[in-house]
């Protein structure tokens, strides 16, 4: 018997960023106060969410409904299960680090409209945590749309023509996808009269037509364009024009993971694994994701802008998650779920390093970064850890997720899938290695030094000055980078950290009905 505990903890967790956003607006004149609101809210939120973890891992559910019977059979509110909590934990933990990082980044670059930035950031987290904790599709949709709208000002933050264009593209893709999602939810509701997430799925093949279910699945897939699968991925590289903390948290964790999260929810909790098998949708989904896994990696190789390369890497990695779910085997789903926090940790490390390089040296292109490893050793070591993790090298987080994904592929019986995982991992190496090589092993071209007779560049060749010590605010940047890099290793050695592994085990147990 599933035990459900009514508790206001989900509400408290949601309220933290909501209240913070209001307080941030009110204290726009006092930057120190404004930033402390963000920090306080993020820490409180993490505590609330973490405090739910022991209950959840014991097989209970935490729920709290705000409005009952919004439409008959659908309550507006939160029902926290293991998988939702996993995503919430990831997002809220990384929010603390990114808040810290934002202070250093935004102040060092003297960015404009910082109040708007922090306000929208808090709102976006509000949306992301809402998506994670919501108990049914309708609630999820509400927060999903809030997440889209609140991220727009962050994408267009620079307010240049290019940024405005990126913002428009962002909205055009994501709100269109929201429309499809709404249609899918309305259709689901009209078919079965509920939208709750059930571990065994809510749609049943016995009384529904096969083609209806296929069309519905297509609608859901179009509705989760936030997952940036190909060919609907191009908004994500464009959105990289946003400030780096935004790219780091929202476009590597909160927004895109919300899309992936939705896909997992739909596959496992709306359709249910049995129905997916019956319709043969799993193989289709995995094959579809495999195209992006490989394709995005190929695109990544061609990018010279570091953040764009990371963006394509994100696109590829997100598809690993979709791919894993599509395998429909316990191991595959474990791999997919575990990749959500693990990829988050590693990718955020990489993005934060990219931001740190920008702050310290003003460089954004990979080809300009020759020798930067010597000028910024700490940053680049962290970067290397993240990059190795992405490629799946032990003992870094990425190894575990790829291990499970491979096991899942074998379990599913499609050996081609195993090959695809290995090829995609190999491609990860292909696009990450040149960055590391340029940073550590390439010397600054002599002619560049000769042409530009600026003392700074000449000093740069030998001995390299530490860019990390020059920038007074760099401590704000390096602490979060350090924490995420170290954690990427620690979670591989101790997967029980922050309840990550127990939560996934619990989720898998629920899914397999035991």
């Amino acid at each position: 018997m599933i035990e459900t505990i009514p508790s206001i903890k989900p509400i408290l967790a949601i309220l933290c960023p909501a209240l913070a956003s209001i307080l941030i607006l009110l204290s726009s004149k006092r930057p120190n106060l404004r930033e402390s609101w963000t920090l306080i809210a993020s820490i409180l939120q993490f505590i609330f969410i973490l405090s739910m973890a022991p209950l959840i891992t014991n097989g209970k559910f935490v729920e709290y409904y705000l409005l009952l019977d919004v439409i008959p059979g659908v309550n507006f509110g939160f029902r926290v299960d293991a998988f939702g909590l996993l995503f919430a934990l990831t997002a809220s933990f990384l929010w603390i680090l990114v808040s810290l990082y934002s202070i250093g980044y935004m102040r060092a670059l003297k960015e404009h409209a910082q109040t708007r930035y922090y306000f929208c950031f808090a709102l976006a987290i509000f949306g992301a945590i809402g998506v994670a904790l919501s108990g049914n599709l309708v609630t999820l949709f509400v927060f999903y749309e809030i997440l889209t709208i609140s991220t727009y000002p962050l994408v267009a933050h620079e307010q240049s023509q290019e940024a405005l264009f990126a913002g428009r593209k962002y909205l055009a893709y994501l709100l269109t996808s929201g429309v499809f999602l709404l249609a899918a939810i309305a259709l689901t509701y009209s078919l079965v009269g509920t939208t709750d997430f059930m571990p065994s799925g809510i749609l049943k093949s016995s009384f529904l037509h096969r083609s209806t279910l296929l069309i519905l699945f297509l609608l859901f897939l179009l509705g989760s364009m936030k997952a940036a699968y190909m060919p609907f991925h191009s908004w994500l590289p464009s959105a990289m024009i946003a400030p780096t903390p935004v790219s780091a948290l929202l476009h590597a964790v909160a927004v895109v993971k919300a899309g992936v999260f939705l896909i997992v929810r739909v596959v496992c909790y709306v359709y249910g694994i049995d129905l997916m098998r019956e319709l043969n949708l799993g193989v289709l989904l995995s094959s579809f994701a495999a195209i992006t896994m490989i394709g995005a990696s190929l695109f990544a190789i061609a990018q010279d802008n570091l953040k764009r390369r990371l963006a394509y890497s994100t696109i590829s990695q997100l598809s690993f998650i979709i791919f894993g779910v599509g395998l429909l085997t316990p191991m595959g789903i474990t791999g997919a779920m575990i990749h959500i926090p693990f990829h988050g940790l590693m990718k955020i490390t990489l993005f934060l390093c990219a931001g740190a390089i920008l702050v310290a040296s003003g460089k954004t292109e990979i080809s300009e970064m020759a020798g930067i490893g010597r000028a910024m050793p700490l940053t680049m070591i962290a970067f290397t850890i993240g990059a190795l993790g992405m490629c799946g090298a032990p003992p870094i987080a990425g190894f575990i997720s790829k291990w499970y994904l491979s096991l899942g592929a074998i379990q599913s019986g499609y050996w081609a899938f195993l090959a695809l995982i290995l090829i995609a991992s190999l491609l990860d190496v292909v696009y990450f290695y040149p960055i590391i090589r340029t940073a550590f092993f390439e010397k600054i071209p002599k002619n560049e030094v000769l042409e530009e007779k600026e003392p700074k560049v000449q000093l740069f060749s030998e001995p390299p000055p530490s860019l990390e010590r020059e920038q007074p605010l760099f401590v704000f940047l390096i602490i979060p980078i350090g924490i995420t890099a170290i954690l990427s290793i620690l979670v591989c050695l101790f997967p029980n950290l922050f309840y990550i592994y127990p939560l996934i085990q619990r989720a898998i147990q629920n899914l397999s009905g035991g």
Partner: protein
Amino acid sequence: MLSFVEHLPLLIVVSSIISSITILIAGWINRKSAWYISTATILGQFISSIIILNHILKFGKIHYRLGGWVPPWGIEYVMDELNAYILIILLFLALLCIIYSKRNIEHELPEKVVSFYTIYQLLITGLCGVVVTGDIFNMYVFIEIFSLSAYALIASRGKISLRASFTYLVLGSIGACFFLIGIGFLYAITGSLNIHDLSILLPPFYTNRVIIASFVFILVGLSIKMALFPLHTWLPDAHAFAPSEISAMLSGIIIEVSTYAFIRVSFSVFTFKFLKILPVMEILSWIASLAIIFGSIWAISQTNLKRMLAYSSVANMGYIILALSLSLSSKTSPWGGLTPALMHIANHALMKGCLFLTAGAFIYKSNLWFINDFYQLGKRMPYTSGAFVVSAISMIGIPPSVGFVSKLYIILASIEAKRFIFVGILLLSSLLNLIYFWRVIETMYMKTGNHKGNSFPSPFPKDEIPIAMLIPIWILAVLCILMGIFWLAKIPMPILDRINLLFGLSQKL
């Protein structure tokens, strides 16, 4: 012996007429008194409308016989849940508009303050009259009263608005004529003008050609009044060039009251059984879809904010009529029957009221009409722009705003009616809404230079409108979100369920 509350329907109308004459006389002595008298009257009317609704919910319908004449011969005022609901929306927006108008009219029409409030009060009289009356000819009279006042109010800015007003005058008169012809046909067959009486007398004649013709005449006549595509051509100019509070009333109330008249005629006089004989709802649903699509596309092509909002009204009328046309085929509470249509009437009044008032605020402060000139408004007028963003987001239908709830309910209704094409149309229209509203928001907050590459001078000093104008704007903006939550919590649903029960559109029958 009638209780005090049962006199209120008449008092609402009579007090308004008396107030209108009083304003004229008192304003002649002291110009400043005009606003106070008008506001006090509308506040009184608003409070009485709430008392009436409360009474109806407790004790049922109110019948008031004018002069004590027995109904089929004398005029009767009948209040049920539907009138009371519309009346509250009407007077609420009227109240906010008049609070807003104090500073705006002093600024825009300093010469015409007294006549403005006199006619404004007449407009309210007409609107209230249409809503409270239980006599179809009396309804025609009040439609003419509010239309004539509207013509005058639209023309009050002079110059180009004269032409807008004249177009509306010509088309509106044709509409009224059609309505009158329809009533004439009804009278010719049944010999009665009382709505309740007609609904009893009509059923044997449902297939009678004269009756069908009369329904069509009434439908076309009211379609002009409610600016239903393709009879909306008077609307964009009239909305754009009227004073902004009148634009808000036109868009949020006047076309909706005409819709109310149509609902009343089609469901009270003719009843749903008649509507099932003719394919009228089928036709209306397609017209409404065209209205939604074309209204939105025209809105995209506008450069003048108020014209853009006007075309958006055409599209929103489409929403209401589409919801109305689905009312026969969807019965499940809470989205069955008239609920989505009536809900969107209230929601549209809130959203469009707020949008037009903010558009008026931009004109009041810096004479800004065109969207391209709105750069940096987010810094110049932060509170007004904030309200604009809230209501625009609501128009796009981002949850949990009122626009989202309307959209959701109409979608659920069309799914229940098995008309999936309308789901597509509604969703497409919300994307089109996104395009034209986001362009404004982007210009207000994000643009740092114009298309020629020149950057704007900065920093902009903050330059806000007076607090008396901000309050109504923000009340509406907050309600755009709050009402959405109220709808989702189903607080107003009992009223709407009872309306459906009244017209036999509920599942329970």
